[in-house]
């Protein structure tokens, strides 16, 4: 019997398919970029050959297993060839060096709005609580106050600021700091996610977060501890508040896409905003981690007021320089 066309077709190419299968498997396990050079050259070639074999097989072969095999293989190879990303380290370096500051700069106006709302919240919280201490409870969640309320004595309030590591550890303050870290991360992520609801809930959230800070400040200021409180909160607080402001900006971007998608479909607009927002959010999580580290390490070990202010100033300068000059020289890869 004469050989069937598809049988000969398969016999001629089977070896290269098997080879591609092997390369795809190791590319999936270790990443395309970590393959040895000859394999990196061979994989796209084999992929193209196999893709065209699939086209041919579809039109001449009636062997279903063959066509299904080729479809699966080409799909996997496609992900390796066109879905290839750089090494993990390269991705991180590109992100920190270029993508994050660029994304923040692009969202400049929304960052300003978000910061303005937080600032208004701080001012209102401070102003109201200074005039009427009872309003403190309206602004501060009891969980977060941890005993720092108008009923506390000035000594207790002073202790929360100047406690050393041992005492803090005994009183569970370190655990409380960690709780604050997850709480603040959640506020930041909530600010982003609420953007889906048209961005409107983002503003009250930012406002109330600011108001809480303002209320805290008013409480401490009323006992003459205002300067000390600022020295306690600012070293990590600058990073933390900035992170929340940026998250709010990302949320507002989502809200804008939801309410005013422009010429694009709502879904397409959300997708773009979601991508840019996620870029900011990734950086925000990193910033919150840094804030958490500063808080965990320095807050209880550095009790000198001057040092605290110096630290706060350093972080402020660092972020200013980073966001203003970061990403200027690099190119964003699409």
């Amino acid at each position, binding site marked *: *019997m004469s050989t*069937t*066309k*598809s*049988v000969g077709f*398969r016999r001629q190419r089977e070896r290269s398919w098997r080879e591609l299968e092997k390369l795809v498997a190791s*590319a*999936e*396990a270790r*990443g395309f970029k970590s393959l040895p050079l000859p394999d990196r050259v061979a994989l796209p070639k084999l992929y193209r050959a196999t*893709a*065209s074999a*699939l086209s041919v097989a579809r039109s*001449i*072969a*009636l*062997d279903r*297993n*063959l066509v299904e*095999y080729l*479809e*699966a*293989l*080409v*799909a*996997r190879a496609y992900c*390796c060839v*066109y*879905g*290839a*990303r750089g090494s*993990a380290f390269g*991705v991180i370096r590109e*992100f920190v060096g270029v993508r994050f500051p660029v994304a923040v700069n692009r969202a400049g106006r929304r960052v300003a709005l978000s910061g303005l709302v937080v600032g208004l919240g701080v001012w209102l919280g401070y102003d109201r609580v200074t005039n009427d201490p009872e309003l403190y409870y309206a602004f501060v969640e009891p969980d977060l106050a941890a005993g720092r309320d108008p009923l506390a004595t000035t000594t207790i309030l002073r202790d929360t600021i100047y406690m050393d590591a*041992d005492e*803090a*550890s*005994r009183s*569970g303050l*370190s*655990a409380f*700091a*960690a*709780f604050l*870290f*997850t709480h603040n*991360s959640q506020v930041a*992520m909530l600010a982003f*996610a609420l953007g*889906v609801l048209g961005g409107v809930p983002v503003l009250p959230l930012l406002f109330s977060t600011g108001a809480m800070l303002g209320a805290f400040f008013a409480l401490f200021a009323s006992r003459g501890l205002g300067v000390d409180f600022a020295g306690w909160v600012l070293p990590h607080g600058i990073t933390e508040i900035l992170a929340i402001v940026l998250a709010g900006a990302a949320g507002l971007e989502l809200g804008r896409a939801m309410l005013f998608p422009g010429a694009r479909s709502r879904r397409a607009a*959300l*997708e773009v905003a*979601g*991508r840019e*927002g*996620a870029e900011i*959010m*990734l950086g925000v*999580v990193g910033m919150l981690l840094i804030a958490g580290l500063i808080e*965990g390490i320095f807050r209880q070990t550095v009790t000198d007021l001057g040092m605290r202010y110096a630290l706060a100033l350093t972080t402020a300068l660092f972020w200013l320089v980073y966001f203003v000059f970061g990403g200027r020289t690099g190119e964003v890869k699409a």
Partner: protein
Amino acid sequence: MTALVEENARAQLRIVTPEGVALDLRIPDTSERLAAFVYDFAMVFLGTMTIVIVGGILAVMSGRAGGVVLALVVVTQFLFFNGYYIYFEGRPRGATPGKRRLGMRVIDRRGGALRTEQIVARNLVRNFEFLLPLAAAGSYAQLGVVDHAGKVFFCIAVVIACAISPVLTRDRLRVGDWLAGTLVVASPEAKLLQDLGRARGETATHEFSREHLAIYGVYELQVLEDLLRSGSGLTREKAEAVAVKIRKKIGWHDPVDDPKLFLREFYTAQRAHLERELVLGRRKESKSDTTARS
């Protein structure tokens, strides 16, 4: 690199590669997604429990520095919960262990490269789809279900709305997928089996004429292929029964000693015939397809 993407009504995504080859990627069922979710969630849960237990023991042992250890535990488990998905989906395979087990992966909806921020976006949103509303509902419920009924109800409604969104959307999109521009597709690892079309010996025991082969079409051929590939599932009795049916249909009157051999050779001959016809532009879909008859 973006490829042309056509979305069709069936549960699959068609990507046209830059080479011009259309790839149809199947969108997994909700049940498959759910199974993967349960698997991953169990892994995360176990990991978190391990962190908490080990951390707890360490905290007790370290005495005065216990508070610092506890703080580390909280941060570690937070990072672990979010990092698990991001790490595994960020790897070249693009799948968490649960997804991999069920033969799925995450891809960019436009068919381009899956970027890190997309993975981060689709996974951070998970916190709001599921964990935060549940935690909030729980804490409100502790304060008193009756007083906070509205809030508890709202939180649960959010969870339910997010949970059913893959059922409602055509591409089985989770809210996170929607935001990140990603999509979960089936990523089967198909095996290339032995070619049944290859003639075994030099001469076949059964010779089929053109008339014999003009009856069946592609559909029947592939049903026969499945049957022949079923291995031990093809018993002699089954082969016998199928062979009798085929013989009757195509008008084969000679006796058949080995029904399995008969089926094999019939498959080979039928495929060769249909493929020859295909080259001539005549594709016979099934036995009831009469348009392609020469």
